[in-house]
């Protein structure tokens, strides 16, 4: 609960600052919010690290927290701080002056919604969290009023999001009809006792569809690319990492704590199919993209497929590997978005063809981008390699022959993904054409953000303590009781 309260306090402070401080001080708002969120993150992280976090429930089991939950929230917080850091320059620009505060407020609310999703043990709370995490995002997507794409993206996002939540709630209604409760614990008990009806299967499918929407699993992903492309870059980076990370974890929570008993009968195979589709289709689309944001959208779709492997494994190792994957993914993707954002701000270019010769004009940015790409592609010694290796290891821990096949398919897909990640590297380093983007100096906040993310990309894997920390938490996670 502490983290939520901390977050709400930050929200209120930002709100009050935005409302009552004079116009001139508004310039400082981005920094203030970043620092505040950083403080909240640190506080939450420390309260966990100091050992005060235990597995507790509140509101009669409607809300639960545990060290793992605290950890994932901390991870999301760190990501959010980086996103804020990287957005300082963008939101400091003049056209943002009138809605600078709102950006931070909405972002904090969505983060709060994600916290609720993660901690909710009751479907009503969960749905509220889900909406909290997605509706304000629609507004954020529409933030760039100067561009038509931003509006289009926002419309597409809100329409599909509402449709998806309708389907999701339909699924929940079926579950409710079958189990008679919306508390996760009660449903789990009812479902493990009762027989599996067809209605339940459909309910699971709808729930997976609803969550698949947030995670952009194929075929529920179609909104992703359009929205990522149209949204302001900071929002895109937020959408692609934080929102996805939260959704993945809460997805696992639902699948384990609600449908855990149906693993081998029902949703193992659903996920199996979805993972194959997600990774493959995401990759196939990514090959042809030239808009960097759209490109990363498809890349993030296929990354979501890899994240799902951790869920498919349905064991502690899968859980920890998934969390680690999310962490690494946050850093790698944010490094990429940091570069994209900096270049977009300086020159307005977001196309891959504009990146030609970047290594000559902006070697450091190019280098950061390359490391990010390598990490996303899973090249050692960068963190992405470790996360990918661990997620495969975790998946195979499940043991069935089918999972070997699944992992093999995923592995073959890594080759396709390597191809398109290398396309970016090729554009920056190999293409012999005249550079499009001139040399420029990125702002301090952008550089700081890049230093942090690139540092993370380089160190998160090699420094084994990170994974070990997550693993130790995973061992004592309440989720472990639900795994087969």
């Amino acid at each position, binding site marked *: 609960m502490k983290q939520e309260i901390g977050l709400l306090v930050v929200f209120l402070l930002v709100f009050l600052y935005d409302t009552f401080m004079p116009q001139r001080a508004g310039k400082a708002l981005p920094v203030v919010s970043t620092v505040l969120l950083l403080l909240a993150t640190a506080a939450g992280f420390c309260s966990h690290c100091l050992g005060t976090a235990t597995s507790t429930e509140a509101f009669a089991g409607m809300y639960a927290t545990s060290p793992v939950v605290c950890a994932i929230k901390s991870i999301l917080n760190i990501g959010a701080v980086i996103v804020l850091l990287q957005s300082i320059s963008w939101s400091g620009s003049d056209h943002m002056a009138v809605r600078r505060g709102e950006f931070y407020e909405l972002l904090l609310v969505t983060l709060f919604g994600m916290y609720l999703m993660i901690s909710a043990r009751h*479907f*009503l709370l969960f*749905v*509220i969290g889900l*909406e909290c995490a997605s*509706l304000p995002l*629609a*507004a954020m997507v*529409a933030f760039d*009023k100067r561009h*038509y*794409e931003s*509006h*289009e*993206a*926002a*419309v*597409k996002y*809100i*329409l599909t999001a*509402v*449709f998806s*939540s*309708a*389907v999701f*709630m*339909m699924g*929940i*209604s*079926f579950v*409710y*009809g079958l189990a*008679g*409760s*919306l508390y996760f614990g009660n449903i789990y008990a009812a479902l493990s006792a009762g027989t599996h009806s067809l209605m339940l299967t459909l309910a699971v499918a709808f729930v997976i569809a609803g969550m698949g929407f947030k995670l952009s699993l194929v075929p529920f992903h179609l909104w992703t*690319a*359009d929205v990522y*492309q*149209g949204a302001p870059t900071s929002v895109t980076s937020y959408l692609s990492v934080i929102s996805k990370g939260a959704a993945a974890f809460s997805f696992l929570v639902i699948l384990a704590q609600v449908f855990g008993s149906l693993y081998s009968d029902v949703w193992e195979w659903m996920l199996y199919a979805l993972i194959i589709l997600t990774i493959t289709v995401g990759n196939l689309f990514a090959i*042809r993209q030239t808009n960097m944001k759209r490109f990363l959208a498809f890349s993030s779709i296929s990354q979501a497929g890899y994240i799902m492997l951790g869920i498919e494994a349905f064991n502690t190792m899968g859980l920890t590997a998934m969390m680690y994957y999310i962490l690494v993914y946050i850093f790698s993707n944010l490094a990429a978005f940091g570069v994209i954002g900096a270049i977009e701000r300086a020159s307005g270019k977001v196309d891959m063809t504009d990146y030609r010769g970047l290594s000559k004009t902006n070697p450091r940015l190019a280098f950061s981008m390359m490391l990010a790409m390598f990490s996303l592609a899973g090249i050692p010694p960068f963190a992405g390699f470790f996360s990918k290796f661990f997620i495969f290891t975790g998946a195979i821990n499940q043991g069935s022959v089918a999972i070997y096949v699944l992992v093999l398919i995923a592995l073959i897909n890594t080759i396709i993904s390597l191809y398109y990640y290398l396309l970016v590297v090729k554009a920056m380093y190999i293409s012999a054409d005249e550079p499009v983007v001139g040399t420029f100096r990125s702002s301090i906040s952008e550089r700081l953000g890049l230093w942090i993310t690139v540092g993370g990309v380089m160190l998160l894997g090699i420094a084994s303590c990170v994974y070990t920390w997550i693993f130790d938490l995973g061992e004592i996670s309440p989720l472990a009781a639900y795994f087969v």
Partner: protein
Amino acid sequence: MEIKAIMLLVPALIMFCCGVYGFITRRNMIAILISLELMLNAVDINFAVFNRYLWPDAMEGMFFTLFAIAIAAAETALAIAIIINLYRSAKNIDVRDLNKLKY
């Protein structure tokens, strides 16, 4: 004759399907929002029916419906804001003209 749960669920389901149909076929974004309202409403009815017929002891379904109505209201408000915003910039709210972002 008794009014069984299914007798209410099926009309609700039809309502939901109409919503789906409307979403997919209508071109006006407001009409699409209307279709979405149908779908959400169908879900609400479902909850209420399940609660009343199958699990009358607690009021979970009813409360869910209650909150869902609030959520639907919020969604609609925000969606309309966004649509109007788009209308201002594009002077058009035909959903099929939303095709700048594709492939």
